[in-house]
């Protein structure tokens, strides 16, 4: 059976590299953190403890999965290729502009 393109780790990473996606996660996470502030009744100590540490652990798991996927993708990449598509990695050499008078 052919794998769904979305299940491909490369696609997930592309999604994660998009600034908008990361900002979305960030906002979502901040909302989760401030949720107890908007509660009508104060949360009990056990509730707060398990809530905050649970949310934190979820973040760590997310970061670990992202890190794992990136590393796996880099290992699968043919040797000699630049590690990540960023501004500092070497792009293809620019071709010399032809002189129109030639």
């Amino acid at each position: 059976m052919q794998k769904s393109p979305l299940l491909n780790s490369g696609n997930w990473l592309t999604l994660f590299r998009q600034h908008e996606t990361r900002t979305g996660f960030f906002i979502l996470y901040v909302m989760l953190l401030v949720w107890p502030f908007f509660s009508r009744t104060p949360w009990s100590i056990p509730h707060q403890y398990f809530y905050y540490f649970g949310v934190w652990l979820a973040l760590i798991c997310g970061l670990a999965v992202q890190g794992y996927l990136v590393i796996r993708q880099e290992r699968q990449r043919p040797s000699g290729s630049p590690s990540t598509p960023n501004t500092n990695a070497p792009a293809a050499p620019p071709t010399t502009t032809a002189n129109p008078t030639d």
Partner: protein
Amino acid sequence: MITTTSLVSAMLIYMAILFCIAQWGESRSPLARKVGRHPMTYSLSLAIYCSSWTFYGLIGMATQTGFLFLTSFIGPCLVMIFSWSVLRRLVLLKEHFRFASLADFMAARYNKSNLVGALVSVFALLGSIPYMSIQLKAIIESFNLLLKGTPTSAFERIMQHNFDILVVALMAFFAIVFGVRRQDPTLRHRGMVMALAAESLVKLVAFIAVGVFATWVLNDGLFDLLTYAQAHVDTSPQFAAMTRQMPMELWIAFFLLATINMLFLPRQFHIAIVENPNVNHLRTAQWAFPLYLFLLTLFVFPITIAALKIDLPADTADYFLLLLPQATGHPLLAMLVFIGGFSAAMGMTMAAAMTLSTMFSNNLILPLARRCHFEFPLQKYLLQIRWAAVILILGCSYGFYRAIGEFEMIAQIGILAFSATLQFAPAILGGLYWAKGNRFGAVCGISLGFVFWFFTLIIPALAKAQILPAGLLYDGLFGVSFLRPTGLFGTDGLHPISHAVFWSLLFNATAYVVGSLLVPGTREEQVNAQRFTGVLEVDEQLTLSEALTIPAEPKIRILREIFSRYFSPERTERKLREILRATGMEQMPTISIQLLSQLASNAESALAGSIGVAAAHQSIKESGLLTAEETAAMSLSYADLLAQLNISPKELKEKVDFYQARETLMHKTSEDLQHQVEMRTSELKVTNEHLLKTLSKLNETQKHLVEVDKMAALGGLVAGVAHEINTPLGISITAASHLSDTTSELRDKFATGQLTKTDFTRFFDNSEESLRILRNNTRRAAELIKSFKQVAVDQSSEDRRRFNLKEYLDEVMLSLRPKIKHTPYQIQIDCDPNIVVDTYPGAFSQIITNLVMNSLIHGFEDRDHGTIRIQATRDQDNLNLVYEDDGKGLDAKALEQLFEPFFTSKRGQGGSGLGAHIVYNLVTQKLGGKISKNSQPEAGLRYDIQIPLTR
């Protein structure tokens, strides 16, 4: 019970262990290099973020502000989603610009400005000294708390009184030995990073140990503790504080403080950026470091609740971690906590002292000396200046602790220091992402930010410590209530921290932006800014020009003069050689303008590693290495090059970038490969050693087996010979008995007078016959014993002697007779009776014995006939021995393995598989000869042995 001596000893032993780790880390051992470069070591070293403020102070904070402390940890973790790109950018910039500290980076970004570097250094020092004082406070107070009420001897009292000095001295020593050992601080301190990683592990283990103890040993688990706290919310103000939701602006302030400090605290910047061995390690750190923080903070609440449950005073909350095991009678656990706290303080102090001393020397002392024209001889003593700076910084921290630290809780001083670092954030982030941000804006922003930081946080702290009048807090500056340090411009409702963060950051960021926009930087500054932000603009107003040839010697002389200001003569020459080699102009009398440009760039880069980017740039600029004419020629030459290549300046830049990046990638790949080769070599070495050991053991076992085999053969020989001697001795006994009987019979007849002549004649006949039998059989027994003695002695002796070969072969055969005589097999010996050889008879006897026994046991198995032929001849130098049997022979595979140890066709039936192997070893090693084998199934087996006689 914990005594002063035991506590100080534990501390010193721990220091010694750290020292060994750091020393090992600096060694060339492949394992040390592997561990030092490991991403987990890097991730753990980042945990110097958790100083003693975290270790002890978190619990104090939890008792006052409940869950607020979590923002200091969740914030940095959350920002890991984005910080990857910030950190990566900084690491890549570090590799290019070789900056050695935060101040150096700022100076490099803002047009290599000494002023920016100096400002950042001064404020970093101001912000860090309170923070370092907490570390001293934590160690000294935890030491005193542990020993409170402990009887002490006079010596121990002296030790207690001077403990603070001892701690400062130890910290200075460690920071100097491992943090400030090289003049070029951009070189990685692998040993120190490994020691920091080890310290991070120790403090984590200590914290978790107390957490587990408080949760599951003293109480019935996590839920039990949390429900207990909830049940006592109404009676305990500390538990009530845990349920109280802190104002959101305070959460945001803490979140900002923690996040910025995780990235830009001077020590954190140094470890995360300057000491980064590989940019990809950031990927591991992005989850490993948050996990570390998670594990460390997991038990803050359980420990706090457990301590309050046993009624420990709330005003000692900073030290609940230490007091809890001590109050419940677990001094060893308390000592572990002390060591953990010491680790936390030590790691932070060491890294901070190292980076601050670099800032102090590179960005304050050297520029100041240059400005005052007092350069000589300071530059030659850069390292010593840094050592002095370490001592000075630690001394100031100790002074701060004695002046103010004793009045404040650890957490409050920590926040004070954190807020100072926040003032660098606009200039750093703007410098990385906003090309218009310039030196003027940065100076305005940082200065104004620190003014507000000082006014809103330090002045209230000084007033509380009664160093400044307390009225300042209520009446405001100059009696203007609008200028109250804790209620600036009428913002009274804010928490002091939120208040300080809000105002200082607002003025800082505004001044940075407005200053940058109002006073645009020079063209040079703009180009430099674009190198940092990644947007490249190239001057296109270039025209054609002719190339210029420049004599090399004057330029080298200028460089020598610059370098000799900072380095010893030997080092100056070495650096010069390296630069000339890197530029590719060794022994060139004249150089082109392009080479000169390259030379200036390489020289600046080499100098930047030691004295900072700004100072290096200034030195090269002021040295006259590039004259105005040469600078102009360089511009023309560059334009000429563009014209020749027929490309635009932008395209040229892209090409250069591409090839530079490719070179970096190749260099990195080559380093990785080299590392892998080293690793494999090391692994092979280990495997080889293991194999050698196994081989040695195998040889020992084999020798032992050979000895056992020899003894068994000797035992068989003894049994056989005993059996053989038994026959002639039995016959002799019978003959002697018969002679005795006939003698008695003759005596009786003589006594009774019945003796006849016939009796007498018969007696003589019987006597002669008996004596003949006796003589023959005793001679036979004597011969047997003689042969046995010779063979047995030879087999157990290593001596060499001369002997007659034929006689010796007969003796060996005689010793083998018990094995042969009951079999149908024949042995034929064909040997010249005159052959005398000088060799090892024992080895010889064992060779013949083993070959014969192999034939009997294996060759003639299940056969009713068989013949063994032994033929011995001698030429001038060798004895040639042919041994053959007509047994069942061997197939090709078995023949191939014949001489291998433990090869046998009778495994499990008593065959050791060593007979032929021993023969091979005796012939080739003991006798120095050659042996070959030949056989086919059902065609017998033949050995051809050649033994040299002149060995």
